[in-house]
C-alpha cells in the first residue's frame, strides 16, 4: 500500500519543487525529503502503478501508454540549423511517475574514468566540443555505490578487467544467464575478449515489497508488474513518499519557472489535469525533466532578464545534444535460445571502451552486449532477415523458425558533443496546450558513424565465432530518433561555456538546479541512466549542503 502523502497548497512555499519524477527526479525527491525538506514533485504524466503494466504491445508501445504522445506533444526534426525542421516524431521518453526508468532496458554499468577526462587524455576533436567534466569518477564513486545498494543493481564485481575501481561489491548476484549470454561469452572468449555478467537494475533477489525478476520477457518498453525493475517508481518514489514530506503531483505539466525582482526562482507554473494554470511556490527549484524537456522549460521561461531563456546567459541551453551511437547485428542459431524469456541482456563486454584514436582513426569507444529485447509483434515486423517475404507461407516459416533462435549483438558507443546538435523551440509548431513544440537538430559526428561501423564489424566477427547459422546487420545511419537525451545543459566550471556548476546549480540563478541527462558533459559509451542516478544522489547532497549554509534563502 502506498503511504498517505502530504497535500501542500500551491500558495504554501515548500522547500523544493522538483520538476520530473524519473531517474533523477525520484532520487532527488527521496534524498531531499529524507533530509527533512518539504518537497513537491510535479510530474507531467499520470501516476500509474504495477496493476497498469500490461503486456499488450499495441496499448503500451503503439499507443504510448507510458511515453510521450506525439499527438499531444508533437515535435519537429532537422539535421542542421540551416534546414527547415519538419514535423516527425524524433524522441521518446517515459511520461509517467517514474519517467523513462519505468520502461528502460535497465543496463546499469558505471561510466569509466575516461568519460570524465576525455579532453585531458586525448585533446580536442575536430568538429566536436569535447570537455572534461568538473568532477571525476572518484567524486562520483560513492554515489554509484549508493545507486547499486539503495535502488538495487544485480551484478558481479571484479568480473570485467576494464571496470573502474569500486568501494563495495554489488548488493546481489547477477541475473541468470540467457542462451544469448552463453553464446556471446563463449564466442567472445574465443576471440580473446572479456565478456562479463551484465550489471542490471533488475532484482535477482526479492527486496521488501518487490519481487525478484519473473523473466516474463516484456521488459524493454514495458513497466514491470512485480516491481523487479529498479525504476524510480518502484524505488525512490516509494521511499520519498514514506518520509511523509514528499507530495508526488501527477498530471502537472510545468511550462514556466518565474523569478522575483532579485532574480531568484519563486516556484513553478504548470497546467493541472484540467489544464488550469497553477503556481506552486517554493524556496528552490530542481528541474529533472530529462534532456529534452529541461532545456525546453528553460527556453519557455525566457524573461526580461534572460531573453534567450532562463539561466541561458551562456547560450548553451539545449546545445550539445548526444544520443549515444549504436547499431544491431542479428544472428540466428541452430537450436532454440528462447531468449524471449527474461530481461534483455545477460552478458556484455567493454574491451573497446577506450580505443586508441591513433590506431582506429576516430574518437570514442564503446561495448557490445548480447540481447533480445523485442516482443512478438515487433519481432515479426522488424527482426527478420533481409529478403524474407513479409507475408504468406515464406514469412510464417521464417518467423516460426527464427523467433526462438535469434539474438542481437548490440553495439553501443559515444556520441561526440556538437554545439549544433540541440533541442530548441520550434517557431511554428505548438503542442496541445499551445506551447512551442520541441525542435530537434541532430547530425552525428563522422567519428560516431565510424565507431558504430567498427563496433558492428566486431559484432559480426563475434557472430561468426559463435557459429551463427545466419547473420546480418545494417551499416551505421545518421540518427534521427532520440532515446538517450544527453548533454543539453552541460555541467562546467566556466559560466560562459556551461549551464550548471558541479553542484548542479545554474550559473545564473542561485536557487535553480538542473539534474538529469542534460547535465552530462560527455555521452559515456551508452547506457547513461546509472550515471544520471549517481549524479542525482550527489546533487541532492550538494543542494542539501548549500541549503544548510543558507545559500538558497533570499
Amino acid at each position, binding site marked *: 500500500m502506498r503511504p498517505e502523502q502530504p497535500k501542500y497548497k500551491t500558495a504554501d512555499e515548500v522547500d523544493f519543487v522538483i520538476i520530473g519524477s524519473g531517474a533523477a527526479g525520484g532520487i532527488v525527491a527521496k534524498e531531499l525529503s529524507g533530509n527533512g525538506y518539504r518537497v513537491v514533485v510535479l510530474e507531467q504524466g499520470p501516476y500509474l502503478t504495477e496493476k497498469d503494466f500490461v*503486456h499488450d504491445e499495441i*496499448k503500451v508501445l503503439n499507443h504510448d501508454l507510458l511515453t510521450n504522445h506525439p499527438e499531444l506533444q508533437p515535435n519537429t526534426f532537422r539535421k542542421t540549423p540551416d534546414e527547415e525542421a519538419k514535423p516527425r516524431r524524433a524522441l521518446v521518453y517515459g511520461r509517467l511517475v517514474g519517467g523513462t526508468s519505468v520502461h528502460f532496458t535497465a543496463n546499469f554499468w558505471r561510466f569509466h574514468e575516461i568519460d570524465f577526462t576525455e579532453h585531458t587524455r586525448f585533446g580536442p576533436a575536430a568538429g566536436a566540443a569535447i570537455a572534461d567534466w568538473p568532477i571525476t569518477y572518484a567524486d562520483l564513486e560513492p554515489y554509484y555505490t549508493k545507486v547499486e545498494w539503495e535502488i538495487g543493481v544485480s551484478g558481479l564485481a571484479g568480473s570485467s578487467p576494464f571496470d573502474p575501481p569500486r568501494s563495495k561489491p554489488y548488493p546481489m548476484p547477477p541475473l541468470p*544467464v540467457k542462451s544469448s549470454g*552463453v553464446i556471446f561469452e563463449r564466442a567472445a572468449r574465443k576471440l580473446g575478449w572479456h565478456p562479463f555478467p551484465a550489471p542490471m537494475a533488475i532484482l535477482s533477489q*526479492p527486496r521488501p515489497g518487490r519481487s525478484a525478476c519473473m523473466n516474463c520477457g516484456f521488459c524493454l518498453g514495458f513497466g514491470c508488474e512485480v516491481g523487479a525493475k529498479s525504476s524510480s517508481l518502484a524505488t525512490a518514489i516509494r521511499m520519498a513518499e514514506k518520509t511523509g514530506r514528499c507530495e508526488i503531483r501527477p498530471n502537472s505539466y510545468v511550462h514556466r519557472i518565474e523569478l522575483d525582482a532579485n532574480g531568484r526562482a519563486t516556484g513553478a507554473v504548470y497546467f493541472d489535469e484540467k489544464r488550469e494554470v497553477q503556481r506552486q511556490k517554493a524556496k528552490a527549484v530542481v528541474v529533472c525533466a530529462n534532456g529534452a524537456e529541461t532545456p525546453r522549460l528553460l527556453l519557455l521561461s525566457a524573461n526580461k532578464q534572460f531573453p534567450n531563456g532562463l539561466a541561458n546567459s551562456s547560450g548553451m541551453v539545449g546545445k550539445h545534444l548526444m544520443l549515444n551511437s549504436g547499431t544491431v547485428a542479428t544472428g540466428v542459431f541452430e537450436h*532454440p535460445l528462447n531468449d524471449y*524469456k527474461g530481461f534483455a541482456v545477460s552478458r556484455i563486454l567493454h574491451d573497446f571502451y577506450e580505443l586508441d584514436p591513433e590506431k582506429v582513426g576516430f574518437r570514442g569507444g564503446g561495448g557490445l552486449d548480447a540481447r533480445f529485447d523485442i516482443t512478438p509483434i*515487433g519481432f515479426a515486423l522488424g527482426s527478420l532477415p533481409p529478403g524474407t517475404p513479409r507475408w*504468406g507461407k515464406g514469412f*510464417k516459416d521464417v518467423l516460426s523458425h527464427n523467433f526462438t533462435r535469434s539474438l542481437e549483438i548490440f553495439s553501443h558507443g559515444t556520441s561526440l558533443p556538437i554545439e549544433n546538435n540541440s533541442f530548441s523551440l520550434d517557431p511554428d509548431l505548438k503542442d496541445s496546450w499551445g506551447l512551442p513544440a520541441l525542435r530537434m537538430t541532430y547530425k552525428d559526428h563522422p567519428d560516431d558513424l565510424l565507431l558504430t561501423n567498427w563496433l558492428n564489424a566486431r559484432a559480426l566477427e563475434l557472430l561468426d565465432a559463435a557459429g551463427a547459422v545466419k547473420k546480418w546487420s545494417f551499416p551505421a545511419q545518421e540518427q534521427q530518433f532520440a532515446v538517450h537525451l544527453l548533454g543539453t545543459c552541460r555541467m562546467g566550471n566556466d559560466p560562459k561555456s556551461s549551464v550548471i556548476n558541479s553542484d548542479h546549480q545554474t550559473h545564473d540563478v542561485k536557487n535553480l538546479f538542473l539534474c538529469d541527462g542534460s547535465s552530462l558533459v560527455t555521452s559515456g559509451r551508452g547506457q547513461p541512466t546509472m550515471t544520471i542516478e549517481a549524479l542525482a544522489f550527489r546533487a541532492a547532497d550538494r543542494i542539501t549542503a548549500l541549503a544548510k549554509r543558507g545559500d538558497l534563502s533570499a
Partner: protein
Amino acid sequence: MKSTFTRREILSQGLAGMSAAWVSAHWPAMLSAATHARQAAKSAAPPKFEFFSPEQAVEIEAICARIIPTTDTPGAREAGVVFFIDRALVTFAKVNQKLYTEGLPELQARVREMFPGAEKFSAAASKQQDEVLASLDEHPTEGRGRPFRASAAAQTFFETIRVDTISGFLIDPDSDKRGNRDGVGWKVIGRDDAHMFQPPFGYYDKDYPGWQPNPADADKTKS
C-alpha cells in the same frame, strides 16, 4: 470464494498483500490457474462482429488467411485475427475504418480484373488470392532495418491489413483485443504463453557451469 484468479488480480494482490518472496515461490501454480481461467473464459463467449458485416468478415478473414496461412500449424484464421481487426476498428483503430471500407471493394475489383470469373476474393483459388495481394504489396521483402517500434499508421489498405494481421496473431492473448485466440499465434512461433519463466531458458544455457573468470585474465581481474 473464488477458486481462480485472473493474472491481474494476482499481480495486484501480490504487491499489496503478499510478500514478494511468497509470490515468487508460488508464482507458477498461480499462473497456471490464471491461464486456465483465461482460456475457459475465451471459449465460453461466442464471438460477434461489431464493425464488419458477416459478408465483409468472410472476405477479411480470407485475406488474413493468406497473410498468415494455415499450414501444418494454425494461421490467422485459427487465431481469430478477423475478430481482433473488427474490435480494433471500433476501438483503438477507428481512424482506419475508411481504409477498410474503401479498400475492400477496391481489392474485390482487382480480383475481378485479374481473374475474370472470380466473383470475390474468398471465392478465388489460394494462388490467385496471393497474386492479388502481391499486386498490392509495395515492399515484398524485408530489408529496411529495424524500426524502433511497430508502424502505427500504415498508409495503404494492404499494408494496414498486413500489420493488423500480424498484430492480431501475436498480441498478448491476455489483452482485451480478441487476438491470438487461445495463444495459437505464440504457439506457432514457439513462445510459451506463460508470463513467468525460470532458467534454463534455452538450449545453450542449460549446461552452463556458472561464470568463471577467463584463466588468461586471472591476474587482471584480481585488482
